[in-house]
């Protein structure tokens, strides 16, 4: 086990990692930017070291600053948390070159899973269902029409190069396809200098379901079931729950099983999450793997009673998993509410300011992971996550009831938060029926969603 870990992150996840370190009896050093000098993790750490100015590029995203801090504070490992440098294989390599351990997958594993398209092909080869698409790049219109017919409309035309939506079109008919292909080719050509296109099946009302896995250095792996993250806003998750209401128990078990088999076969190591899109018929398609601890990991911790961050650290230290699949038992239902400093009535505009009052809810099955305290100044430089409220119940209705009570009790004053959106969600019929899809909140709009809830 490590002696001393540098936590190269901020906010609630820095605090979460610090708590895991305490549990493991490992000293924790928090690396912070000037803007986070008075933050809770910096105050509670065994040691705190300022690594740069508020600008993340010169602090939390600066590999030299983070590694230098680890070296001068006598650490033997670096925990990157999520975001920032957590999935940067170059950073992981430099960490190792300085005789430190990167807490996450080893650099060669990160490298193998770095490309989304490559990962889809790799894991698809090990039995994961992937989104149906064209067999190769589109040669001509004839080829495109034949492939689209085979896949079934609607289809998404995607350029081989680049990203950001350029050269991308969703089409519902063969006529649309013919005209859209010309536009996509010229867009892709001018944006990336490469006009090769391919087709992917478009899933209209999809749900986002992900499987949590852990694999040790010796190739032993277990899954911890899935989480449903369909409540999103512009591809940002705001509420997660488990088990997913979208799939039957049998389908859930099947999905988790193919997921863990595929990643073990592909040589994955450490904790990870496989993300799937699930269509209306309950078909799951693999989209990508997250090689880090995720924001929503507590949902799984509530169901299994297993500390995933501690497990992540133990695996990185070279310890065997110490778990068989039969040791992982999921119980009940859990929901996580992401509490953000943003204004749902004004297009989720992010806010900053001083927390005047703060009260975290309690009671059975209630957990609050947050770095807030009264007087804390929320800096404007980073993401707006203030904390996560997680509730557990023996079944979904009980979890929802505890969620309502806890959200009622939760008090955050001084900055505008999205707490109202969560309260509204727990009164929303689509959510209560377990039928949220990833596009629902964006389609309705935050303000309209709140107004509808208020009118009930």
């Amino acid at each position, binding site marked *: 086990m490590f002696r001393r870990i540098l936590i190269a992150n901020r906010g609630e996840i820095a605090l979460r990692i610090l708590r895991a370190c305490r549990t493991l009896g490992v000293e924790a050093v928090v690396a912070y930017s000037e803007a986070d000098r*008075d933050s809770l993790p910096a105050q509670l*750490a065994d040691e705190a070291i300022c690594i740069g100015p508020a600008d993340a590029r010169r602090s939390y995203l600066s590999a030299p600053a983070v590694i230098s801090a680890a070296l*001068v504070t006598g650490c033997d490992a670096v925990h990157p948390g999520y975001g920032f440098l957590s999935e940067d294989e170059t950073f992981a390599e430099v960490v190792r070159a*300085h005789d430190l351990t990167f807490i996450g997958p080893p650099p060669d594993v990160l490298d193998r899973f770095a490309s989304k398209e490559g990962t889809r092909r790799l894991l698809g080869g090990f039995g994961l269902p992937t989104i149906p698409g064209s067999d190769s790049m589109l040669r001509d219109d004839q080829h495109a029409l034949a492939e689209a017919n085979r896949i079934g409309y609607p289809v998404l035309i995607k350029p081989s190069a680049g990203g950001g939506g350029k050269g991308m079109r969703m089409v519902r008919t063969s006529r649309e396809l013919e005209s859209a292909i010309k536009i996509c080719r010229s867009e892709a050509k001018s944006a990336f200098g490469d006009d090769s296109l391919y087709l992917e099946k478009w899933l209209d009302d999809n749900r986002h379901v992900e499987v949590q896995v852990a694999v040790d250095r010796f190739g032993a792996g277990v899954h911890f079931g899935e989480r449903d993250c369909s409540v999103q806003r512009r591809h940002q998750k705001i509420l997660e729950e488990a088990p997913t209401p979208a799939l039957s128990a049998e389908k859930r078990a099947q999905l988790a099983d193919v997921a863990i088999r595929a990643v073990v076969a592909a040589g994955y190591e450490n904790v990870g999450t496989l993300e799937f899109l699930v269509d209306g018929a309950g078909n799951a398609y693999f989209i990508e793997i997250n090689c880090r601890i995720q924001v929503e990991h507590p949902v799984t911790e509530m169901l299994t009673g297993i500390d995933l961050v501690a497990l992540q650290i133990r695996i990185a230290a070279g310890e065997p998993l110490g778990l068989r699949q039969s040791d992982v038992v999921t119980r009940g239902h859990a929901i996580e509410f992401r509490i953000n400093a943003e204004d749902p009535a004004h297009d989720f505009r992010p806010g900053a300011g001083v927390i005047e009052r703060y009260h975290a809810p309690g009671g059975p099955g209630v957990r609050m992971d947050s770095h807030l305290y009264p007087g804390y100044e929320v800096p404007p430089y980073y993401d707006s996550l203030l904390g996560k409220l997680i509730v557990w119940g023996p079944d979904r209705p009980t979890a929802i009831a505890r969620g309502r009570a806890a959200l009622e009790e939760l008090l955050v004053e001084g900055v505008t938060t999205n707490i109202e959106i969560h309260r509204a969600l727990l009164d929303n019929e689509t959510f209560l029926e377990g039928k949220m899809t990833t596009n629902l909140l964006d389609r309705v709009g935050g303000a309209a969603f709140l107004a509808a809830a208020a009118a009930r």
Partner: protein
Amino acid sequence: MPEAGRQPEPQDDGSDSSRLADHAGIARLTDDLLPALIAKLSTTQLGELEVREGDWHIRLRRPYGIGPGEGRRASDKPSRSQPGHEGHGHGRAAVESHRPARPAASSGGGAASTGATAGSGAASAASNGTGALGHAPSSKDGDGDRSRSIATSPAVGVFNPSPRAASGTRVRAGDSLGTVDMLGVPQDIPAPADGVVGQTLVEAGMAVEYGQELIRLELTAPTSAGPAEGR
């Protein structure tokens, strides 16, 4: 009481306009003399400092109850200025005991919030002078004065003061006072202002964090031909 001293007269730049001279005088007062005086007041046990010069006089008064050193910014916890990485520790500090540092910092921002008055025939100087100070009570501006007189670390790494910038050396703003080695890459420590190198606060070879105070600077007016003030 250390001699606030006779400040050098404004340089005769050849302009025969007394109005221009006035403006130059105001600029010099607000830009050079005041920060230097504030820095001086901050480091002494004095409660008040007054300087007279020709038609001008400036009086700085420390708010009652704010002792020297208490005007340091919240981040200047004593542990931070100690060399060695042990010095970075917050310890398992209680949140409550940590907070009161902030109000102290703003009131102590410090010496800068003390009043200044300008003498006869200098109405514009008075408004300009106090105007400059009037914005000062925020801790930020207090930091501004402080940052001018103390060179801080540009990076997290190992401190290497330059032998060519030993105590007593006269330097210009931007001159290198040494480096902080971050993973073997030297990062320059620039002098924050014109002045004379004073006390080095961290031993050579020790680990320092970003923003840590490293070297004191005795400020001098850039136009001054006279010797630097001693302490």
